[in-house]
């Protein structure tokens, strides 16, 4: 660990924290339908879209209607992306002449992008035509992120409103999030990336002669436009198979920083929106404190583990940290930071190989994805809110009152839905892993033996169920078995979470708001932050302890004893 490394990490956190308030203020105005400077540009577009769709922007929806609209929209997006992949051979913008993608891979990919996971069982440059990338993948990159923002807005409104029947209008939330938040930032961000050398063209792949006299096909395409939304929308699906480790995706230290900042930007700002909507920004900062503490702890552990390096390599006289699977232009600090950040916000972009992390370095990303409070755009908001609800319920009784959070009584329905929201993703991760490590079709894809191979499978389903999409690698996942089961894990992770969350939103909105008093559990401050972290680690984390013990934990102790797998 170097001072230089820590300074880079500090700069990153500094920028992220500085952005929270201004961006939160802006998003809040947008989602409330207030005028912003961009209304001049997009106001008429927005109204035009509503007219086209026959939506009344003033009309609010009951949570069930809101949910139905969301599910319908996702189904349509899934079908479109599935059909584009199957039919891309007959469609334009296909200079590389790529044929139809297989049915199971298309299913997996369509689910993956629709659920904001961006798990990629395929290699982008050798599978998808430009049309599929732009009209299918990139569109879902935007709207799946906007759906996340919408879901978060629904539950935020649930807390902010009292005795209300509705939680907002899905179509309006979706449109505003895309038009005023994601699109403008992406336009500016893409230009910055192009300036830094990221390609943005529709050219056929360049064939170059190498110095050794060989031939190399250099893949390119509309990369910059997909890069920024990949991080901003916590999607993570790379244009190239190597993802953000590829020099065309992430050429410089500046682009790396831009990628990192955009991963957290909206997720964190949404918690500020939460604070603003409930009338006390400290409430948002407290939840940010929960996430921030877990993320910082993760960065410290991973950076320490990677910088400490591999004892077996040291024994061979190779000094220093673990540089296997890392880009030297990012180094240990930024690679460690990226690994934690991308798994903390359910993004899944990678700038190094997680498979090559030290066992403890790999444990952290895995664990980050298993605890719901660390989730992507929108999902992070409701993930942390679910645990805040559970923490308030468990510990809130200890102040001698029926638990209340922000004036809302936490009762049977909220508890039931919170438990369901926790249960769905856990079910997907544990059960699919349990199946995959015993059936031959599952076992045949595992590259490494022993606990490391186990981690690869566990990581794949964890990544899917968390809608993260990063791969530990080492697992040949583009097989019908993994395509289908990981596809199901992604669906469970997305919808078994978002549906209970909307139910909570509806139930909370309908409740009265009890005014706070000296007898009310304080939900800001270190005590509360510690409480939510405790509940997250014990209730959320312990579910996976046996699995983690058989993966990275045993690998760590084995490595100390000089054994590798």
């Amino acid at each position: 660990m170097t001072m230089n490394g820590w300074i880079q990490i500090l700069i990153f956190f500094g920028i992220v924290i500085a952005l929270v308030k201004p961006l939160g203020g802006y998003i809040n105005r947008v989602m409330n339908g207030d005028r912003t400077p961009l209304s001049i540009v997009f106001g008429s577009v927005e109204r035009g879209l509503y007219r086209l769709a026959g939506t009344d922007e003033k009309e609010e929806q009951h949570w069930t209607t809101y949910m139905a609209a969301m599910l319908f929209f996702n189904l349509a997006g899934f079908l479109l992306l599935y059909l584009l992949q199957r039919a891309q051979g007959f469609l334009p913008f296909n200079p590389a002449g790529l044929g139809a993608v297989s049915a199971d891979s298309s299913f997996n990919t369509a689910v993956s992008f629709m659920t904001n996971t961006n798990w990629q069982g395929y290699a982008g440059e050798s599978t998808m035509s430009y049309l599929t990338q732009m009209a299918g993948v990139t569109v879902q990159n935007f709207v799946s992120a906007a759906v996340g923002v919408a879901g978060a807005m629904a539950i935020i409104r649930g807390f902010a409103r009292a005795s209300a029947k509705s939680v907002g209008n899905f179509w309006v939330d979706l449109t505003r999030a895309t038009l005023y938040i994601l699109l403008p930032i992406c336009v500016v961000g893409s230009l910055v990336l192009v300036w830094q050398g990221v390609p943005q063209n529709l050219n056929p792949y360049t064939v170059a002669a190498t110095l050794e006299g060989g031939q190399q096909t250099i893949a390119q395409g509309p990369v910059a436009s997909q890069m920024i939304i990949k991080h901003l929308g916590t999607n993570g699906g790379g244009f190239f198979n190597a993802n953000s480790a590829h020099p065309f995706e992430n050429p410089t230290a500046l682009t790396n920083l831009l990628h990192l900042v955009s991963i957290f930007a909206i997720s964190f700002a949404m918690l500020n929106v939460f604070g603003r909507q409930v009338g006390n920004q400290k409430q948002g900062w407290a939840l940010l404190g929960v996430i921030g503490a877990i993320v910082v702890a993760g960065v410290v552990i991973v950076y320490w583990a990677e910088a400490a390096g591999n004892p077996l390599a040291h024994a061979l006289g190779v000094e220093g940290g673990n540089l296997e699977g890392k880009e030297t232009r990012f180094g240990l600090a930024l690679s460690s930071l990226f690994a934690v950040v991308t798994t903390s916000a359910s993004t899944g972009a990678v700038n190094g190989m997680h498979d090559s992390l030290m066992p403890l370095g790999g444990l952290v990303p895995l664990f980050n994805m298993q605890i719901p409070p660390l989730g992507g755009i929108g999902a992070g908001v409701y993930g942390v809110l679910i645990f805040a609800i559970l923490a308030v319920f468990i510990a809130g009784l200890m102040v001698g009152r029926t638990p209340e959070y922000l004036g809302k009584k936490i009762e049977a329905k909220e508890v039931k839905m919170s438990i369901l929201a926790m249960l769905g993703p856990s079910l997907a991760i544990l059960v699919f892993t349990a199946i995959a490590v015993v059936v031959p079709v599952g076992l045949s894809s595992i590259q490494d033996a022993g606990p490391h191979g186990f981690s690869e499978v566990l990581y794949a389903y964890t990544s899917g169920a968390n809608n993260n999409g990063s791969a530990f690698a080492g697992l040949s996942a583009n097989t019908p078995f993994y395509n289908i089961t990981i596809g199901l894990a992604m669906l469970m992770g997305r919808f078994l979470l978002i549906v209970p969350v909307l139910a909570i939103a509806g139930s909370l909105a309908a409740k009265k708001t009890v005014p706070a008093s000296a007898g009310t559990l304080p939900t800001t401050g270190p005590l509360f932050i510690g409480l939510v972290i405790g509940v997250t680690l014990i209730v959320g984390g312990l579910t996976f302890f046996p699995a983690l013990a058989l993966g990275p934990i045993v690998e760590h102790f084995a490595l100390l004893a000089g054994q590798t797998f």
Partner: protein
Amino acid sequence: MLESHMSHSKSASILDARILVPAVGGTFRKLDPRSLARNPVMFVVAAVSALTTILLVKDILTGGGNIGFSFQIVLWLWFTVLFANFAEAVAEGRGKAQAESLRRTRTETQARLLASAAGDDYKVVPGNSLKVGDIVLVEAGDIIPSDGEVIEGVASVNEAAITGESAPVIRESGGDRSAVTGGTQVLSDRIRVRVTAAAGSTFIDRMIGLVEGAERQKTPNEIALNILLAGMTLIFVLATVTIPSFASYAGGAIPVIVLVALFVTLIPTTIGALLSAIGIAGMDRLVRFNVLAMSGRAVEAAGDVDTLLLDKTGTITLGNRQAAEFRPVRGVTERELADAAQLASLADETPEGRSIVVLAKEKYNIRARDMAGLHATFVPFTAQSRMSGVDLEGSTIRKGAVEAVLKHVEQGAVAAGSAHIGSETIREIRAVADDIARQGGTPLAVVKDGRLLGVVYLKDIVKGGIRERFAELRRMGIRTVMITGDNPMTAAAIAAEAGVDDFLAQATPENKLALIREEQAKGKLVAMCGDGTNDAPALAQADVGVAMNTGTVAAREAGNMVDLDSDPTKLIEIVEIGKQLLMTRGALTTFSIANDIAKYFAIIPAMFLAFYPQLGALNVMGLATPQSAILSAIIFNALIIVALIPLSLKGVSYRAVGAGALLSRNLTIYGLGGIVAPFVGIKAIDMAVTAIGLV
């Protein structure tokens, strides 16, 4: 007094053999699956215990497995279930003992059923044949056959059967003390009672049902907690059923008995086992405090109360006003006024009258004189004159409400044909009276032979310590509102002196009801107590309505609690009992969940050691062998239930500090304590288990 009463009964009964011995029987009766099904966590434990028992029998028959170890695990699994049953049985046992003594009062009584309300003809019928609306005659020495309302007469009644208080109370027709309870005994006089409850649904029947827990329904909060516990059980089902597959990938196999042990230690058995005991004990704590809650929901609501409506008289101030000062008009000495006021009060037996005599004696050393020796005749207070006083040796002294006295003076002057008294004096009297009212007192004017002497300042005496109680309530986040019939000026002064947050002056049943609705519209929960029929709508509207046992039938029906001691101050303690109930649940839930960390560290390395010896590094407690580790964890898990029974019955102690301070205190004790305790406990058990050589 109340507090000592409470703590006395609390400590007396927890380890009482009369309760513990019958509870052992109840422990086994509760193994009935229908009874277990009420509690999802313990039902699951019982189910897996049964499963492992079958596996054990199979192992014994086929001679496979480690029978000695399996047998011990199965044994402790069953102990876990039995300990939970035992906790519930003990909690119920305390109520049962009380129900038994109540039942004795419900012995067969004979009733004199009157043919008509007016006549005296009656026939003797068995008490349990009475119907609602029947009219019975009850005479001295009779047991009142059923709940009812006195429609004629007045009697002193011994209500010790339900209140435990042996001093007789007065019950009379009309007014706010007309309700009588079946099973209580008339000591003097005779009354006619209209029966208001049929056999089987009387107050005592309901009380028996409540204390026995027979009618116990799960409260909303308990339901929510049960969902959480069931949900966590499901999550840990997932965590354990997937282990065999993970293990087989690693080339190992885990015996079912070990998986079951891990599962049972992880699921929240501690709180699952004690949850119903906590609820029963909370109810029981109220009963011991002589308050009957009609439902567990009411007890829970008490903990949530935001606004407390308290009657001024009897709750905030002593029931009676006391003379505090003599304020003569100009030209009259204080001593002169005191002397006249004392004479006027000598025969006045009201507390106010007596306090005037005492004040004159203390302040001016004017000894109370003998009325007979003075040849004085007492003129009692009447509704018409609104004055009282004496006539002696040709002079008349009167005291009374200022306006009444002024009117009396005016009339006297007109009758005597003399010029009316100086308007200056009247103005002076009025000014003094206003001043006294502003200070929260009641002015009493004194007149001797048509000459106004001055005003006696009767002061509402705020109860000692009540100000501190209100400050405490404020720290708990509860707002207090004083309800009084006084005018706003007087009310404001007393409110300020007592330290309440707000007051409702010139209260009527209507504006009381309106105030409750207004508070509830803001999302607040309101508690109040009352006794009169006109309190009934407000009692019904309030979230916690405590009816006084001395009150009317209507009030008792409307409230969701009845205070057998009829002490309105108890509202404050009722709130504390409600909070204690919720806190106990929260504390044990937190403790139970926090325990899981240590259990993982005990069982996971033990479980996987056979194929991943490296995981021995996770054995941070240094437990002797895998078997001893697993056995110790399951023994700890069972014993902790027994160890926490006293706490669940007694309740976590409540302190009136802010929620933040309370949370940090309880989180430290039950959260951090819950993490640390099992590390210590499991290690100690492991040492014991190894020393004895159990594995």
